[in-house]
């Protein structure tokens, strides 16, 4: 069973979003980190650019696979979690807390309506 906190929003591509005023904090779900297994590297490639939902903003590397990261809402990436440079495994240990990946400046709060709720996401991953 994966952890799916109720106070967050989710995407079909297993990213979560937490709203903090005008900023959105984003990471990958417990389900995703379990599937990937040991994460060894996170590469954020689109810092400072205006992105729209579904744009790829980087990749996450596990020992045997590389997965794309998709931005859940429009906006500009204003901060990247520095811990991940030296301790990428933080995402495995604490995917919703210390393992956050990016902070986005929200462009349009209306877009949050098209994200999944915790129960939508639970259905999506079949749990």
């Amino acid at each position, binding site marked *: 069973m994966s952890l799916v906190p109720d106070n967050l929003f989710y995407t079909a591509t297993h990213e979560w979003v937490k709203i903090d005023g005008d900023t959105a904090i984003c990471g990958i779900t417990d389900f995703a980190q379990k599937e990937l297994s040991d994460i*060894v*590297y996170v*590469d954020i490639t689109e810092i400072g650019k205006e992105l729209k939902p579904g744009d790829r903003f980087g*990749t996450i*590397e*596990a*020992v*045997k*696979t*590389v997965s794309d990261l998709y931005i859940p809402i429009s906006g500009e990436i204003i901060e990247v979690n520095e811990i991940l440079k030296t301790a990428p495994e933080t995402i495995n240990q604490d995917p919703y807390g210390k393992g956050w990946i990016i902070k986005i400046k929200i462009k349009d709060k209306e877009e949050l309506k098209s994200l999944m709720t915790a129960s939508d996401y639970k259905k999506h991953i079949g749990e």
Partner: protein
Amino acid sequence: MKFTPHNEEEKKKMLEKIGITSIDELFSHIPPTIRLKELLSLPPGATEVEVVKLLNEVKKKNKTTDDFISFLGAGAYDHAIPTVISHITSRSEYYTAYTPYQAEVSQGTLQTIFEYQSLICALFNMDISNASMYDGAQSLAEACLMAVAIKKKNKILACSSINPLYLRVIETYIEGTDIELKILPTPEGKIDLDLLKKTIDTSFASVVVQHPNLFGLLEPVKEIEQIAHNADALFVVSVDPISLGILSPPGDYNADIAVGEGQSLGIPLSFGGPYLGIFTCKKDFVRFIPGRLVGKTVDLDGNPAYVLTLQTREQHIKRERATSNICTNEALCALAATIYLSLLGKEGLKEVATQSLIKAHYLLERIEQETNFRRAFSGPFFKEFTLKGKDIKKLLTALRRKGILGGVPLGRFNRNWQDLLLIAVTEKRTKEELDLLVDCLKELPTLGSS
């Protein structure tokens, strides 16, 4: 690992298990119109004695560097190869070993590759070496692709003093992409720094240079590095590993990616291959380096162990976003180079380089003082130099009759170089052989350029 073929009983059991009676039935879905109905028209089988006789007759048609005094160069050289190397490489554990994907059964292979990587890093004074590429040409082409991926710019600035075959391979690799290759002309035989400064701008991902270059000359690498980095371009250099016995290695002049042809490190000339692509770079670029990397780690009990590492760079994981599609290396050639470097050591390599240098300079000095032949370009050189002549073809034919392979006619690569002959001298050439070449050139005064 040993090869254990199936016997007839095992085959029968397997066929029964899947419900058929013969192996032919496995091909029953292939349309009869394209199936082979008769035997291929090959001659009847021959006995071992007959085959050996036939192969010996074919072999006699070949001439090797044992039959000629060779002054051939341009990327492949007649350097001395210690006999011990083939004794070690022909051990079945090395000779027939497969790719070390399964670390548990490949520690020997992995360790030798790790040693190879370590020696190359020491020799080149670079942070990282991969497990090798196909050859010097392919290494240089991949270095260009890597620079483009790192800088996210799609222009490469190379020069015509790079081996033209290497430039052709770069062109092959960029075909179909939007990468542009610009080639700086080098009418003086080496890079003109003013022309480089005028031509470069910040749209280039890299400046690419060969050192020593095609004509044997040293390029002004320290100045080129400054110009490249000032224009926010990476500095890519292709070097002769033997030259590193005397010349400053690429790490000393801040090269970003340094590659080279490792054939001179104990690998036979054969007929153009297999050779050894050396590939090194700064550690900042570790996630962009192509090819295999062997890493050292510890096992569950804390003992040292070796593995293929950072495999997520590679095509089988990163797929279309990998910076390269190479998924092999030249393990046996890398092993030969490792043994060569271990046997010779620093002093030995310095000796090979020094002898090559001294003999090449002795030869040129005598040629210029006693014959009608002159250098095409001025400047310091290592083990190769370029002569100018009136009929290079005729000259080479005359030399061949005397048992000498006089050098590489550069007209083969470029119509403007019909009058140029590239001569390489290695430590293998004796004073008698050098004097013989001088005597032959003395007898052909009308073919000289002075």
